[in-house]
């Protein structure tokens, strides 16, 4: 369950207004896609949801409570790159979230708890098609495999909200179809609320249940920083649908171990 409410939200960096008067109500299990020109505050908005950027004015609520001021396990993130841990193998990258959760002192699991975590990670690796590559390091993977792993890594702790910052922007167009299938599959299984920034308008229509367009309403050529962007179009897309493709994974793949 994660409904997001945004009320009269402003964000300024010094005198530069980035976002102005943002008002939104996002229902639980919505797949929100965000498009807009460069520099119009899409990423800033996502970073505020993530908790690494603070609102200048206004409110950002998750299920009615103010958002935590730093990143936490209730909000997962997939960046365009650099979010895998290069010193860990594919399997270890995936296990890390579970180890953080269940071993607060050493960050490592042993015995029975390790076995359970390994099983959960293996199921997820099957689901994203990376099981054969489980003992490779991230640098040995292709860009598409890295992003699949990064997405799986983000959902293993079952966040309420998943934030995606142009996750497929650096990938070949050919493999984005696979990626879409995986993200929709995980979205259905985990019942997360997803916010995804993209440059690809087609992708935003194909994936989202709701499309937000960020743009500046007012523009002063003498003072380009004076006005910020806001949501100019808020388009509901098709009604909540079943996952685009029949799940090829057993449902227990994402159940808590």
């Amino acid at each position, binding site marked *: 369950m994660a409904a997001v409410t945004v009320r009269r939200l402003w964000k300024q960096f010094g005198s530069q207004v980035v976002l102005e008067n943002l008002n939104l109500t996002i229902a639980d299990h919505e797949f929100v896609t965000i498009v807009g020109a460069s520099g119009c505050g899409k990423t800033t908005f996502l970073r505020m949801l*993530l908790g*690494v950027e603070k609102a200048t004015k206004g409110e950002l609520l998750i299920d009615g409570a103010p958002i935590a001021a*730093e*990143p*936490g*396990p209730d*909000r*997962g*993130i997939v*960046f365009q*790159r*650099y*979010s*895998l*841990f*290069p*010193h*860990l193998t594919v399997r270890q990258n995936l296990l*890390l*979230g579970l*180890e*953080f*959760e269940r071993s*607060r*002192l*050493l*960050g*490592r699991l042993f015995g029975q708890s390790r076995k359970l975590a390994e099983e959960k990670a293996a199921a997820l690796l099957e689901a994203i098609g990376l099981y054969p590559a489980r003992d490779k*390091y*991230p*640098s040995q993977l292709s860009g598409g495999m890295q992003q699949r792993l*990064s997405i799986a*890594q*983000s959902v*293993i*702790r079952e*966040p309420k909200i998943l934030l995606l910052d142009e996750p497929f922007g650096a990938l070949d167009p050919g493999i984005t179809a696979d990626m879409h299938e995986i993200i929709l599959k995980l979205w259905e299984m985990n019942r997360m609320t997803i916010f995804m920034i993209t440059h690809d308008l087609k992708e935003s229509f194909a994936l989202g249940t709701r499309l937000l367009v960020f743009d500046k309403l007012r523009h002063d050529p003498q003072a380009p920083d004076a006005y910020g962007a806001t949501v100019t179009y808020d388009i509901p897309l098709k009604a909540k649908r079943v996952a685009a493709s029949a799940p090829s994974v057993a449902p227990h793949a994402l159940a808590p171990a």
Partner: protein
Amino acid sequence: MPRLVNLRPNRGGALALGVLPFLLLLAAYLLGSNARLADNPDDKLLPSMSSIGTTLHQYALEEDRRSGDVLLLVDTIASLKRIGLALAISAAIGVTFGLAVGAIPYLRAILAPFIGAIAMIPPLAILPILFIVLGLGEVAKVTLIVIGVAPIIIRDLALRATELPAEQLIKAQTLGASSWLLSIRVILPQLWPRLIDAIRLNLGCAWLFLIAAEAIASTAGLGYRIFLVRRYLAMDVILPYVLWITVLAFSMDALLRLLRAKLFPWAEPAT
């Protein structure tokens, strides 16, 4: 004709080319030595290979008539103990403080300027202080190396820690990492290969400090021996000792490089 930048020697060729400068140096030495000895058979500056061989045999394989020790062995063990202990202590200090300074901004604010200042003290300038305070024993010599090397390792590792992409650190937090878990499972493991690099780059400094300390106050050690026989102009001892130190330092460097490749394959540059 391809450009020079595109011409590459094969493996054997590269090996032969790498040996070439060593052979040239050796040839130059032999020519110089021969010419001087032909002039004056008692010349001590560039001793002949045979006299170096005799001395080396005496130092490396025979027991010293006065002490009953094999001098080269005793000197090597004494020096390696000192430098090994000093590098181990420097590495421990370097990792602990490097991680703390690199990971926690408040500790960085407190410690970084201080460590930066300490690193600028020329260690040899405080060698007299060390001898006065710590006495003339092993502690002062090891401390000198640690003071010279540890601050550089700390700064290098702290720099490496702050270079890690912010995305990684944020991601770890969204996976539920505390500051502690973030430090020991994300930052620290990525500092190990850099620690080995830092030690390798500091080997030269460490040997410099070791030999300086041994030259001033010691009863055994490679640096001690060189400075002891200096007063007899015993080039037939000094030259092989310098060569031996070079071989030791070179081997340590190579060993560390192999260790890095073996332990941290993910940190090797892509081939």
